[in-house]
């Protein structure tokens, strides 16, 4: 089963402060500051090239911001490597599902559990009882995750044979395998039809109801308006607005950014 996430206190789970990231001469993120309240779905929106994926990469440690800092539960994480950030409790999906096509669907989810498990080279090679027990637990948890995400019949397939919607669900289930407090989803419904989008939207809401904090990067306004608690609008790497979805719909700057002058 997906673990229920409980959280103490009122603190922001994630905070960025004046985060700036440059690629050559281009400033992909420009003095970006915002914070995320736990147990919410926060959507990051903005035109293409606004820096949304770059932001996710910065949070997960794939890129290191040149200026500014990112805090997770008050701890600075901008200098940490991706695997360390995953171990702290942040996990993500990618714009194009980055699945491991050299293993089965089930094994993809089992890999996701890496930060929460321990067996090393020696245990792996010698296969002692402790390691066998851990392997059993890994497999059971992976299977229960597949059940939650509706992928059990295809557990032995390779990801390449899944539909796009299934691949997206698989990637999310892999991310959830590490029991993250904060889940980052990068355009999860891109390429899905209306039915699939609604289904995934429901799934995301169910995750939130279990206590998950979710940052969603999306272009699909219908979905964003439907499930978000809070919206942050980016344009050219800066925040041009944030607030509740209804407020942002009316904000003139936001509208201009999307439609142009």
């Amino acid at each position: 089963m997906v673990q229920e996430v409980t959280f103490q206190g009122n603190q922001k789970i994630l905070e960025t402060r004046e985060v700036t990231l440059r690629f050559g001469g281009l400033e992909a993120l420009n003095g970006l500051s915002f914070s995320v309240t736990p147990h919410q779905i926060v959507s990051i929106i903005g035109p293409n090239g606004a820096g949304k994926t770059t932001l996710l990469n910065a949070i997960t440690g794939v890129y290191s911001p040149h200026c500014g800092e990112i805090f997770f539960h008050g701890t600075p994480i901008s200098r940490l490597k991706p695997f360390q950030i995953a171990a702290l409790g942040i996990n993500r999906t990618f714009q194009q599902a980055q699945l491991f096509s050299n293993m089965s669907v089930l094994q993809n989810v089992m890999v996701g559990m890496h930060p929460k498990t321990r067996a090393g080279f020696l245990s792996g090679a010698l296969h002692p009882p402790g390691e066998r027990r851990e392997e059993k637990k890994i497999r059971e948890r992976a299977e229960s995750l597949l059940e939650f995400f509706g992928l059990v019949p295809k557990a032995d397939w390779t990801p390449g044979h899944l539909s796009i919607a299934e691949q997206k669900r698989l990637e999310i289930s892999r991310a959830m395998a590490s029991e993250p407090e904060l889940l980052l989803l990068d355009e999860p419904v891109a390429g899905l039809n209306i039915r699939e989008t609604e289904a995934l939207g429901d799934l995301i809401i169910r995750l939130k109801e279990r206590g998950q904090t979710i940052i969603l990067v999306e272009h699909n306004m219908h979905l964003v308006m439907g499930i978000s608690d809070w919206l942050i609008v980016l344009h050219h790497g800066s925040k041009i607005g944030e607030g509740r979805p209804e407020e942002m719909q009316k904000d003139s700057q936001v509208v201009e950014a999307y439609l142009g002058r």
Partner: protein
Amino acid sequence: MGNKNKISLLIFALIIFTLPAILQNNYHLMVLNVAALNIMVVIGLNLLMGYAGQISLGHAAFFGLGAYLSAIFTATCGFPLWPAMIMAMVIAGIVAYTIGIPTLKLEGHYLVMATLGFNIIIYIVMVQFDAVTGGPSGFAGIPRLRLGDFTFQSDRQIYYLFWALSIAVLFFSMNLTHSRVGRAMAALSHNEIAAGCAGIDTDGYKVKIFVISGVLASLAGSLYAHYITFISPGTFGFFYSIQVVTMVLVGGMASLWGSVFGAILLTLLPEVLHAVQEYNVLIYGLILMAVLVFFPRGLFPGIAGVFAKRRTAVPPDSREQLALEKRVWCRK
């Protein structure tokens, strides 16, 4: 690892251990002994290349380090045999760690170049540092392998020792590839960034597997030295590095069994080509090219597919012919 793999391992061991009864020619046994050692090197290399996705064209250096260090420790310094071999392994491990960390940050051909450069440097040291290594004429008088009071004299006795060790290495490696670490490495080899974001310490694993492969090669080298009792730098040059990489590629990077058979095949091949000694190099190059051009996945992935736990789940409305062995690498 699955039951199929365990049974295969058992059958393989059975065949291997009954072969000496059939083979009377000591020369054949000697070739097989060398094959057993090559398997150790190749398994380590396979883990590095196939699972961690890194390439090394310098493993002859580790093989050579194991050989020379063990020879020097025992023959020159008078240390006991097995501690000397273990010391050699430790030193090889430290060397692998030291050059591994900067080297594995390099990409693609830079990594190849660095491992190659390392191989050449070690080779040159072996040749030039002749006060210690005996130089180009080699190092003789290396003590034989012993266990307690028992000295391994004949090729036949060595055969059992080497193949027991080799199969043990294979067994442990198979366990490893079916474990948490094995999955992590497979993920890492396929998609490094996704693996990192999933919580895998990619840099750490790359270095660790490099060290393990170096240590395995060192062990094989030490055993080689104490078997042949004479070593010279020519054995440990760039060409051997290419040979072991070829064994991995010919066998198929995706499977350990492929590497085992690749090692056996390519150890036997030069012996078969003995009749055309002059053409040895040319034919080797031709085979390497031919296999890589026509069988880039190796000659044995099909066989590996047989040994792998077969998945019967096939997408119901798929019209393509799916080669099962191409689909699933890691066994549960």
